[in-house]
Structure formats: structure tokens, C-alpha cells
């Protein structure tokens, strides 16, 4: 009979803490990189230039259909062979950002699609430049519409960061498996890891909600 005992993990709490910090770090970086990229990508996808639209669509359709794990393998194992040295941490952040950007592009594109064409025409009729139309009228509303989906993406990035363990990034899942392979307390460990992930996702989600609180309370006007 397996003796479920969380106390055996007490000596490893600092290791978990360090892993959780790294999880937060790579997640936060990936979000900071991928969300602006997502907005730029979405602008490309709705642009008048056929070339930009093609690049945007090509990126989304390629990256969205490749597992994050494969992206991480390519970055970590293949790039250095072709003379591009990249360490595990950078490969992890970059892989997560590349993956997250593809989904974020689609989230923002959905936001742009929800703005009626009449608003562009009205803003234009008022004599606004294209930059003003986007910066002052369209993008703030797009951001408001996209907020709930972006919130989901924030959580998806935190959970996706677990896959960086496969290339040796010492985040939460890596530490869980590492401690597991010396203590063999897998049931306790993965219970613990689940709790840590809930905390991490709630923490980053909390920061996200604070940062976007005002926008989220704004009415959805169309």
C-alpha cells in the first residue's frame, strides 16, 4: 500500500521555489515578447499589402500546427549545429514566445474583425490619419475585446512553460521530475507540482488582471 505523505517533500521546498520562480520568469518574458508581436502580426494579417498578409498567415498556419515541443527541440538542438549558439533558457523563452505569438495574432485578429468598418470610415471622415485611426480609435477597442482571450493565453503560456523541462530548463516540471527520480515520491510530487502551477498561474493572472483592470471594466461598445 502506497503511503501518501507530503511531509517527505519538505526538504525539497526550496528546489520547488526556485523552479516556480523560473517558471514565472520564462512565462512573464514570453508574454512580454509574444503579446506585442501578436498585435503586430494581427495588423499584418489585416493590412492592405498582400505580401504582409501572406507572411502573417504563413506564420500563424505554420507555428500553430507545430507542437511547442518540436519548436523547442529545433531551437535547442538544431540551431547550434548551424552556428547559432542558444542556451536552454533562451531557447525556452523564444520557443514559448514563437508559439504564443501565433495564437495571440489570431486573438487580436478576432478583435479587429469585431470592429465595424463604419468606424474606420467615420474616423477617416473626421480627417484622422491612419496612425490616429488605429492608435486612438481601433486598437483600444480591439484590446478591450481581446482581453478575455488574452487572459486565457496568459495561463496557456504558464502551463506551456512546463515543456521547456525537456531541454533542461530548471523550471517547475524539471525540478519535479528531478526530485522524483531521487525520492520516487511521484504521487506527492505531482500533487505538489499541480498546486505550484495553480499558484503560478494565479500569480501571473493576478498581475495581468491588475494591469488590465481598468480596460476590463470598460463597456464593450461597438
Amino acid at each position, binding site marked *: 500500500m502506497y503511503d501518501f505523505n507530503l511531509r517527505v517533500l519538505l526538504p525539497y521546498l526550496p528546489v520547488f521555489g526556485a523552479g516556480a520562480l523560473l517558471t514565472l520568469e520564462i512565462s512573464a518574458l514570453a508574454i512580454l515578447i509574444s503579446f506585442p508581436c501578436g498585435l503586430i502580426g494581427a495588423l499584418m494579417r489585416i493590412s492592405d499589402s498582400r505580401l504582409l498578409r501572406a507572411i502573417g498567415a504563413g506564420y500563424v498556419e505554420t507555428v500553430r500546427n507545430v507542437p511547442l515541443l518540436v519548436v523547442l527541440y529545433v531551437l535547442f538542438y538544431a*540551431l547550434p549545429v548551424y552556428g547559432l*549558439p542558444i542556451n*536552454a533558457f533562451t531557447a525556452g523563452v523564444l520557443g514559448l514566445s514563437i508559439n504564443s505569438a501565433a495564437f495571440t495574432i489570431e486573438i487580436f485578429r478576432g478583435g479587429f474583425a469585431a470592429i465595424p468598418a463604419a468606424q474606420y470610415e467615420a474616423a477617416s471622415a473626421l480627417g484622422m490619419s491612419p496612425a490616429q485611426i488605429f492608435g486612438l480609435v481601433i486598437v483600444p477597442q480591439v484590446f478591450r475585446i481581446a482581453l478575455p482571450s488574452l487572459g486565457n493565453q496568459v495561463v496557456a503560456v504558464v502551463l506551456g512553460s512546463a515543456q521547456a523541462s525537456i531541454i533542461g530548463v530548471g523550471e517547475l516540471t524539471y525540478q519535479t521530475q528531478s526530485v*522524483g*527520480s531521487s525520492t520516487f515520491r511521484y*504521487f506527492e510530487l505531482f500533487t505538489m507540482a499541480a498546486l505550484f502551477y495553480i499558484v503560478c498561474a494565479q500569480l501571473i493572472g493576478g498581475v495581468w488582471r491588475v494591469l488590465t483592470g481598468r480596460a476590463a471594466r470598460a463597456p464593450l461598445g461597438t
Partner: protein
Amino acid sequence: MHRFSLTMLLLGALAPMLIATAHPAAADSILNDVLRRGSVRIAVNTGNEPRQFADENGNLQGYDIDIAGELAKQLGVQIEFIRTDVAGRVAMLQSHKADITIATFTPTLDRLKTVGFTDPYTTDVLTLMIRSDRKELAELKDFDKPEIKIALGRGSTAAKALAKYVPHATVVELPGLADIVQAIDAGQVDATCSNDGLVNWTVKNSNGKYRAVAALGDPEDDSIGLPQGDFVWWMWLNQFVHQINNDGTNYTLWMKWFGSPPPAFVKAPPKT
């Protein structure tokens, strides 16, 4: 906050229940289960040439696989191989998904707190392997620096040996041998540390790309692992190990895969 504590409660309540149901009746011996089932479930760690590996057709081959075949023959049952990795061996025994593991498995006092072991059927020596072009890494002390990264399969006893012999080196745990070799090729790590059988095989088949450098300490025992607390099963397995060690069966299998004599406790077949 409310949602958060509810999740914790659910997890806490569910985990022991799931674990409790995963076990067969404790009073019965695994030996009886195996005989009744007509098959023995053996966890192996694939990708460990020439001891356990899959050939081009996906069939398992190697020295440990031959030992498993001999064991099944003596039991008079079929084999169900369960392919896992270094760390998975213990988990398979713990969760009773496997009846035994034969997978270059070294008994340690730590592991004995969780699983059981027979007496050893062979030994292995942990050996460092590097790319041949890394001329500056010539002996053990060259590895004892923080900038030297040594890749390991997760759950290997090599982690302890490295902490003892090259405490300043940086250890990177990767999922398996394929990843480790790839990481060495890509220059992401400087070396790996594994059993001498695997290292020598990899070196021999690499056309000079890799070389073995230094051994870490003395040979370690390799034993058959089994779930804890089953004396009847342990007794059968241990007697099996004694028999193949003494009647020349083990010696013959070892020579077939390695070509040089096994450790002294594995006796050659009697001369006729």
C-alpha cells in the same frame, strides 16, 4: 480565493484514493499472479545499447533482454515488455504496472527504501563520454568546473557519482540517450556520464566522433528490481540469479554481447 482552496481540497482528497485503487490484493504473491496470468511484465529502459535496445524492426535486443528471456523460460511464461526510461523503472514497480525490471538497475540504500532488489547478475562502471575533438578534456579533474555541463538521463545513479567526483561541474538532466547525444553534438553540453557498456558501444559505433574519458569510481552492481514486500517473489528471483551466475548461462550471454569476461562472480560454464 474560494475557488483556489476548493481545488486544493479536491486534489488532496483524490490523490490517495487513486493510489489506493491501483494496487492488487497484498496477501497474494506476484509469483502466483505471474503464473496464473501466464506472462511476466518486465520494465526495460530502451536506448541502452548493447543491454536493452530496439532493433530496426522495433524488436527488443540486448544482454538484459536475453536475461529476461532466460527468466521467462525458467518461469514457463511469456514476456510482456514495458518500455520506459531510467526514472520510469521505479515508478513501474511502485505502481505494480511491472512485476520486475531488468534494466542496468543498481541497488542503492536510497532506492531500497522504495523497491526491492535481487543479488547482482553483473556490474557496470559509470564512464564519462565526450566528443573526440574536445582535446582539452583529458582527465577527471578537467571536468570539475562550473562551466563544464554534463548531461544525464533523469534518475541515474550518475548524479550522485558526479556530485562526489566532479562536484563543481554543472549537471543537466535530459529525458533520454537520444537527447543527450544530440546535446553533445550541438555543443549544448560537454559530456555525458553513463554505464561503460553503453559508452563503449556508442564510441565504437561513432567512427571516432566520441571517446570515453574517465571512469567514476568502482563498478556498481546491476540487479533485478521488484516491488517491495513480496518475499516469495524475491526468493524465486534471487535463486534464479544465483543459478544463472553459477551454471554458465549468464557467462555465455555476457560473452555474446560484450566479448570480454564478465565480473568474477559470474562463473564460466563447466568444461566438459
